[in-house]
């Protein structure tokens, strides 16, 4: 295609073109159908909206139930923390209490790494016995 031919085709594109068949009847039929459909779609949308509201309510109620009625489980770790945080009022015993707590926690960690170590088990028993003795001292203090 040379330049002159290309320019001629471009000029033809600027002219109006009539469709080979009449398009209006099909467009009109489609518009009629659209007018007939809306009630069904609206019902569907209302149902969807209702379901969403119900699901939201269910979620809120479920969360509230979980918050108010689930008992707070006294986990072992909580007990351990409580035990670890025991501190006698007397300053002469407080340092030893901290030291014993630290030793017990270190031993427990070591036992996790070496569960078969009889020595670590014995040391843990000694440490816990000394903790019990310290508690007795604190209790018996006047």
């Amino acid at each position, binding site marked *: 295609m040379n330049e002159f031919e290309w320019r001629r085709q471009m000029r033809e594109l600027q002219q109006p073109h009539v469709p080979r068949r009449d398009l209006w009847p099909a467009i009109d039929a489609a518009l009629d159908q659209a007018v007939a459909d809306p009630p069904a779609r609206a019902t569907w949308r209302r149902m969807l909206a209702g379901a969403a509201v119900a699901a939201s309510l269910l979620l809120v109620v479920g969360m509230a139930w979980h918050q108010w009625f689930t008992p707070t489980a006294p986990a072992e770790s909580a007990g351990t923390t409580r035990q670890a945080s025991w501190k006698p009022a007397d300053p002469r015993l407080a340092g030893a209490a901290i030291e014993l707590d630290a030793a017990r926690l270190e*031993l427990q960690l070591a036992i996790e790494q070496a569960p078969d170590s009889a*020595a670590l088990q014995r040391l843990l028993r*000694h440490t816990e016995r*000394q903790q019990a003795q310290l508690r007795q001292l604190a209790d018996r*203090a*006047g």
Partner: protein
Amino acid sequence: MKTAHCLPLLLCLCIGDALAGTPIQLQHAASANTRISISNIAGSVNVTAWDRNEVQVGGELGDGAKPLQITGDNDRLSIKVEPRGGSGSGWFNFGGDSRMAPTTLELHVPRGASLDVKVISAPLVIDGLAGGDIKVNTISGNARIHANTPALDVDSVSGGIELSGQADKAALQTVSGEILAPALGRTAKLETISGHIQAGGGPWQTLTLSTVSGDVQLSGKLAAGGSIDIDSMSGVVQLRLPADTPAKLHASSSSGDLRRAFRKPIEAERGPGSSLDTSIGAGDGKIHLETFSGDLRVKKQE
């Protein structure tokens, strides 16, 4: 003019005298092997043996303390420092030291006496006893004991324990206090959490030692058929034994370093750790050493 210059000095002396405690001068007849209970909260307690069947108490009673008495009979005597207005509910009476000043006790007791001493933050010295049992409870006061005793039992929290002389049977326990006992007898039990232990003596029939993080230096002899058991978590254990110790040695460490003078340790096939099983000398004694992360050193005594 000269009198005016002396006035501040006189005033200071008067105040000092007013703040000083009451001198103690008590004595009581006692049997040669009497049992004496002593308790004091703060100040000091010095017990010296003498060759008389008599207990003598000197020193100075702190302000706020009840008048001191020696109670009991010749075979069982008691000396307790207590605050005025009630002794409190516990024997330690922790609140008591806020109501009274420290008391110094200087005791002379029969050489063969047995002692039961309870102190809180008062340092304790026992010197020259021979033949009687000794039992000590202390919180933060150091206990220095020079005695020859068939049974010594010391329970301390943060106070150190020093033992010289000889204890046939010793049980020494601390949380953080150090234990220094170079002349342990046939049976010994040493326990600490973080205090260091330096001990020796023997020949031991039974010696058990446990430490969580305190280092240990032990040097001594094992009796025929005797046993040594040492447990440590992270404390370094150094054991010195004669080359002819009649025992089998088992030593192991999960992650600590094991060095020995007797035989090459066996390294763990997988992961850190090492162990050693060997016979040192001919005999059926047993030595068992175990640490988690603390290093182990087994050496020959020079």
